[in-house]
């Protein structure tokens, strides 16, 4: 199985006032293509920082982050932004849709950075919204949608540019149980049917159960790796 993400002996130290705060201490992780990885751990364990490094929105203090054979930890800001636009789809806990744009326009946001024509962009948006089951809510504004629906739009925005990897931080953290279940179903579907590599940070063991693998972090160190089932890039898994 080829690896998509390789985290090699990564250290991350934040400077807060005059103090150095180590967040990651020599973490090494490999994420194969088609994986669905859950990152768990207590608050302050470094799981979000690790996710940020994988997503290319932060750089390690030491060590390397290689994604799809490119050492993104060596990229400058501009190159990283361009790389993120084509390789990473973000799913946020609070959805973070732009309130003044309707669902379709929100989903289209990443595509404005591409050279696609207006018609092609519209087709991509319709496809993405269809995948998340919101084709009939294209012209609804975020305030007109439920939390679960907003998160679906957020997922559509994450997948619309067909990224290499989806990163999600507590994607169900703000949802009721039913909506959370639906969102996890959707992420699982994206992983199973569309072979999207998913890296998800969660506190919820039930959410982590949906992943193929779970990594536990504590105080910036990888403490446990739980392999639930082999990574199978093609074909759906059983419930």
């Amino acid at each position: 199985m080829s690896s998509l993400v390789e985290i090699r002996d990564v250290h991350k130290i934040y400077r807060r006032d005059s103090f150095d705060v180590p967040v990651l201490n020599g973490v090494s992780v490999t994420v194969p293509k088609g994986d669905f990885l859950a990152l768990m751990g207590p608050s302050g364990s470094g799981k979000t920082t690790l996710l940020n490094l994988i997503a290319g929105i932060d750089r390690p203090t030491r060590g390397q982050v290689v994604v799809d054979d490119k050492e993104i930890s060596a990229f400058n800001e501009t190159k990283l932004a361009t790389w993120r636009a084509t390789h990473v789809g973000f799913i946020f806990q609070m959805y973070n849709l732009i309130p003044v744009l309707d669902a379709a326009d929100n989903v289209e946001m990443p595509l404005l950075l591409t050279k696609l024509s207006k018609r092609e962009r519209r087709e991509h948006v319709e496809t993405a919204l269809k995948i998340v089951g919101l084709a009939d809510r294209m012209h609804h504004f975020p305030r007109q949608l439920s939390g679960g629906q907003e998160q679906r739009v957020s997922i559509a925005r994450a997948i619309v540019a067909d990224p290499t990897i989806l990163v999600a931080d507590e994607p169900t953290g703000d949802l009721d149980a039913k909506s959370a279940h639906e969102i996890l179903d959707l992420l699982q579907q994206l992983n199973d049917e569309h072979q999207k590599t998913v890296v998800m940070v969660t506190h919820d063991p039930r959410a982590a159960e949906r992943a193929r693998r779970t990594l536990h972090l504590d105080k910036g160190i990888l403490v446990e790796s739980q392999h639930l089932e082999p990574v199978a890039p093609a074909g759906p898994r059983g419930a």
Partner: protein
Amino acid sequence: MTFQKLILRNLFRSKLRTTLTLFLMGAIFFFVATMLSILENFEAAANSGEGQNRLAVQSKISLANPLPLSHEEKIRALPGVADVAKLQWVGAYYKEPKNFFANFAIDHDKMSSVWDDYAVPKDQLDAFVADRQGAIVGPELIKRYGWKIGDRVTLIGQIFPFNPEVTIRGVYTHKFDTSSFFFHFDYFYESMKEITGGTVGTFWVKVANPKDMPRISQQIDDMFENSDYPTETFTEKEFQQQFMAMIGDVKLLFRVVSLCSIFMVVLLAALTMSMAARERVTEIAVMKAIGYPGRLILRLMLIEFVILGFLGGALGTLGAKVVYKFVNMTEVTQGFLVAFGVNGKTIATCLAAAAIVGLLAGGLPAYRSARLSVVDGLRKVW
């Protein structure tokens, strides 16, 4: 979906805030446009005699010092002089001191030769010339005081102990001066000769060929250089600019007030734009996370802020244009502002200033947004 749509949606994201900001900026730019228009009006007044080939001859000592009447014929004898006329500033008012307007005693028979830019119907001009106590007045005065031709009007002197009692014989039209009052110099002179002793305030010289104006001007002054009454000769524009120079401090004050207003609007807009940028920190972080480069975010925000500034400026400036089209400022200012309006130059200046206000006020918030660390911005999101 386009960037333009995104900008416009963000611009009117908070309708109340945007509307209030636009109205506040509009009010300030209304004021600035008014100030600049008054300055333009002053300039136009200074240039009102341009192209009339007229020279004004006054005492070299000061405008308040009179010149002997005997200068007239000597000036007239100079080659190239088409005609010469006497003009005396009388400075009287009508009924009450607040009813003040420019009033002059002039050579009644020189209206059509020296002041030929003042158009008077022939029958009215003839009536004025024929009546020693006749007067020609501007249309604004007719309107303001409800006068009509044939009305008997008494002015009350302030400078001279002389209350001119005249009959309105005609109404002139002029492209700029709409509120002056002219009557016979002979009438003034006969009444005041004991006091003025054969003098007059200024002579106005009509020159046949404009190319000769510098020469004639020099010749007049040279001619009286060593006399008891040396002269200083100006073109009409220079003469008018003397008065503008007298109110130079007022012009400076207007400019300073305008600049202060613009500075105020920059601060105000900066506050609004900072608020707009701050409430979007998480959105900007998300945009950066999904691949929007900082310079694109900077551009989008600057365009939004420049549009906001421009709209505020347009509201105020065009509002002023419309208001002054319907409000008669000549009447409101008792003739101080004549033919007042907001011209194209003032509109262009205000709109450019408004766009710059947007750029200056929005520059820092937009720059900070563009420089925002994705992780710091997302810390509020994740």
